[in-house]
């Protein structure tokens, strides 16, 4: 079958601007979601190691719920189902008055999902520390909060860094699912342009190249962080 290449389509007005705006949304969505996921995930990860049973169970329930449902379905649940469960007025507000609803719903979906992944890595990091250390600290008179603050978190998070790095790279890739609820991010934009111009190959190659560059950059950043945070005497490069 024939195909007429037209690389200039990528650079024509307004398509170039569209690609840039798509890239902006992809980056913005990923970075905001990552910030939220990191905070939320750390809290849940800590909760998973808590003494109190109901806190532990609640955190475990959160993780299991978000880990065992496809991300795409999570997007649909937040976008289509959540506003219907809310009280009528609140639901209407989310649907009609929330500025840029596709974007913020995507942020919620992506960050709640990623938080579950982050929580697992944080928990694994904390649990990798021999029990004796926490016990010794408690015996020496530190409070439980201090044990987390000075021993479990600094060490546990550093152990978790490589695995967290993977999640960081994943979030850029996962942000492409936002197209399912109509957010015009990078993948969606390139798809839209290929429909307008009928030049899909150029668009998909461009998108792939951009994602590749993003992945390379994030990998480089993570490797730098990993080098700086590596614990002496421990094999840090754990499995993914």
């Amino acid at each position, binding site marked *: *079958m024939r195909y007429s290449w037209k690389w200039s389509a990528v650079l024509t007005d307004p398509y170039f601007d569209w690609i840039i705006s798509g890239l902006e949304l992809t980056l913005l969505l990923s970075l905001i979601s990552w910030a939220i996921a990191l905070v939320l995930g750390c809290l849940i990860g800590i909760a998973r190691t808590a003494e109190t049973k109901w806190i532990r169970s609640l955190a475990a329930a959160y993780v299991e719920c978000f880990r065992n449902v496809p991300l795409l379905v999570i997007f649909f649940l937040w976008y*289509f189902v959540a506003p219907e469960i809310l009280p009528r007025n609140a639901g209407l507000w989310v*649907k*009609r008055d929330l500025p840029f609803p*596709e974007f913020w719903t995507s942020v919620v979906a992506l960050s709640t999902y990623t938080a579950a992944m982050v929580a697992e890595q944080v928990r694994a990091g904390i649990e990798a520390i021999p029990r004796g250390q926490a016990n010794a600290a408690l015996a020496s008179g530190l409070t439980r909060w201090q044990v987390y603050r000075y021993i479990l978190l600094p060490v546990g998070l550093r152990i978790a860094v490589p695995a967290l790095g993977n999640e960081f790279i994943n979030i850029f890739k996962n942000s492409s699912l936002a197209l399912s609820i109509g957010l*015009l991010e990078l993948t969606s934009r390139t*798809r839209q342009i290929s*429909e307008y111009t*009928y030049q899909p190959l150029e668009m998909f190659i461009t998108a792939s190249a951009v994602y590749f560059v993003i992945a390379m950059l994030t990998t480089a950043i993570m490797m730098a962080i990993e080098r700086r945070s590596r614990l002496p005497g421990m094999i840090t490069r754990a499995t993914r």
Partner: protein
Amino acid sequence: MVWRLALSAAFLATLAFAGPASADDLYGTLKKVNDSGKIVIGHNADSPPFSYIGANGKPEGYTIDLCHRVAEDVKKELKRPDLKIEYVSLTPVNRIPLLVNGTVDMVCATTTNNFTRQRQVDYLSTMYISGARIITRADTGIKSLADLKGRPVTVNQGSSNEQIMKALDEQQKLGIRFINTKDNPQAWASLESSRSDAHVTDEPTAYGLVVASKQPDKYLVVPGPRLSFDPFAIVVRRDDSAFRLVGNKALADLYRSGEIDKIYEKWLSTIGMSMDPETKTLFKVQALPE
């Protein structure tokens, strides 16, 4: 002299045998269909009454009926009554690439014929005149395009309605808040749940969605002039005159014999539409003689 005669006899003989059904002479879609033993119809899942998945799980509708007629004529042309018909479900975004790359042989949906698209694909005779229309909930009070000012409105990603609406929005400075939906069900879910106040789609799809909804009296298709001129046609690959000939002839036969009236009635009356004079003229002028 004798060898000359023999040669021309041989030449004539080859001519006589190389009829249209000879596999060597076929090209394009007819050759592909003949080689693979099947003709692949691309359809929509959700565009009643033109092209949608019926109650039995099989695609049906106005366009599908027309495409079946074309497929029948392809069988006759190739003398291959054994040809199978296969179906592939398409979305507005992927229908053109999948036709061009050969996944489907005809796009039997609600595709508008325009010159931009003719740079990539070709069309059979026009089968229906449509235009973009606004569907709204009865309680929004929307009566015209101008009433959409500042409101949330859904358009399907990649459809010509999206392009039309975004151009109108810019032209008339309406400041519409566009929501890009994947397909009509998602758009309808938005309209139904008050996420949006209107959905802009092809005229028949608009009527069909209202009829198929849970409470048809709660929704209406905004009357008045159509927002665009969209002649619908079956899409085929470019540079494939032989296949187009078979297709257009099949359609002209329908238009000439008046059979089209029955097919039109069968599908479009289900959404409360009847044939207007414009459409009648359209069929008449496209019914070329044999």
